[in-house]
């Protein structure tokens, strides 16, 4: 289980939280829970638990999260040979994260799960939705993410 899902979970959680180290911690927590009560259908289960953990954790430490993400960005930025490009990528990632934060929890989760290759069935199972609603959810989530990002690009980062 660990072998198969550790990478995807950490990626999902990194995208969700913006902090790779915390994503790793949360992924460990997910596996601990999985060992305590082995799920019958692990994939949606693991992703659902991960997203719940990320959400709870994010509520507790919303402020700290930004600080950590900033720190992480600075650390990795300083160690690379092309700081300009790095900076640009970090700025973009921050803009995407801000756009993602404007989405509802359901839309955001659906988007992240789809990005991990989950099927509509799995997304529906993880989020407790009807399968028929997933297409609409994703349509809305995709549109909102792009529009929020564009709006941000048009105002805050318009200079670029």
């Amino acid at each position, binding site marked *: 289980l660990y072998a198969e899902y550790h990478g995807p979970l950490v990626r999902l959680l*990194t995208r969700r939280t913006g902090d790779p180290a915390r994503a790793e911690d949360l992924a460990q927590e997910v596996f601990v829970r999985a060992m305590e009560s082995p799920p019958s259908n692990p994939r949606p289960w693991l992703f659902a638990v991960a997203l719940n953990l990320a959400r709870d954790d994010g509520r507790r430490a919303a402020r700290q999260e930004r600080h950590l993400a900033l720190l992480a960005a600075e650390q*990795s930025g300083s160690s690379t040979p092309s700081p300009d490009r790095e900076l*640009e*990528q970090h700025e973009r990632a921050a803009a995407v994260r801000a756009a*993602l934060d404007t989405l509802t929890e359901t839309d955001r989760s659906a*988007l992240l799960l789809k*990005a991990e*290759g989950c099927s509509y069935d799995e997304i529906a199972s993880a989020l407790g939705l009807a399968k028929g609603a997933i297409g609409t959810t994703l349509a*809305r989530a995709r549109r909102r993410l*792009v529009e929020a990002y564009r709006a941000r690009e048009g105002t805050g980062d318009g200079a670029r």
Partner: protein
Amino acid sequence: MGHVDDGQLNALLDGELSGPERQTVEAHLAACAECRARFEEARAFLAQATDLLGALDGPAARPRSAPATPSVAAPPSAPRLSTVSRTGKERAIEPGAPRIAATHQERAVDVPEPATAQSKAITDADLTRKSAAIRPLFGSKRLPEPAADTPVERRLPSLAWAAMLVLAVGAGWMANEVLHSGRRAQVVATGAPPQQPAEVAANPTAPAAGTTAGPTSSTARQQARPTVRTPLIKPPAERGDKPPSADEAAANIPRDRPPGAARTEPANTAEAGALAAGRATQQGNAGAGAIPSAPTAAVAQSPAPSVTDATAPRARAAQPAAARLVAPATFRLISMDEAVRRQSGTIRLIDGLQPLRVEAGPGSLVPGAAPTRDVVRIVYADATLGALTLDQQPAEAGAREGASVNGLMPGDTLVTAQPDGTVRVRWIDGKGYWLSLTGRGEADDVRAFVERVR
């Protein structure tokens, strides 16, 4: 039926519609310009959202969200393709109008663009439309697939890894020689063996550093194992504590691929890393692409000591072969990028039509195709003819120009009426690509589209 809602459009894009549902939606799309426009819009949103999510991974993890098409390998191939297509030979044997041959040049150069466009930020609406049009048809499908490319920033850690291994091997041998020189001195003169580590460290590209170590070095290695090699044996043990990475590598999760590759073939990775040109890494990673059997491909390629431009095509050539091993018995959705890769870097499209979806499947499913090779299928919707299916197979690696392909000679155009009322036109193009276009309508109507394939 009424108009198609956004949920259905997204489900179609995500490959989540069942057969009948899909047919209904596609039929409607073919007939309804309004919904087609919304479909295009939904596709653009999907592509952009996928791209944006990829940006969240940060620079270190970028390749994960990059297209499966090796972007490092694709750009070098573009000039080569264009060179080939400009020989003008295809003009003579192109079955269609000369126009096709002329525009082939542009297409051949254009097609790899998605790979490079993917890494750019979406800030420009035009760029967005353009790249979305030819690229991530099913962007979100692609995400879980491992990215085959390794941008510079990703290569650095793996180079560091490789360098560490080289150093460790060198140090191990050195220490071995120190420990064993006394013992061995009874039999052999101690002069020659101590040269081994220095040689390996200084010339890591030599086969001696690889799995094909010469007799001397393998002997040395065997002698070394019990004692001094301990630090070298330990890393695998440590990695053994983390089986996930090993399996992830096998499961094509790119994040851990560099360590995974090093684990499978430490010497080769060390070798590749020490080349420092980065191209070796590219070669290995291009091989370790989206296909589960990719590690094999990477291993098969890495022993090649000379890294030249020829590595990219070889990497690509290895992939269709690997893909066949896992090819399903039906067509499955793939991204346009993957389709381009399967087609060895260039793909035939119908000019002026937007692909509805891209699929791949065994040739055995398509009449006239080479049954043992994969077919890339692009499905279009035309307002008058309905669904148009364009199947294609790249030329065999060793195929001669002017030779028959799947029984067709250059210049032949085989038109057959199918039992289901569709018309199938088959031909091969100037570069030996076998093509088949199927549509519902008059033969001439279908043939008119053949002239728009480029």
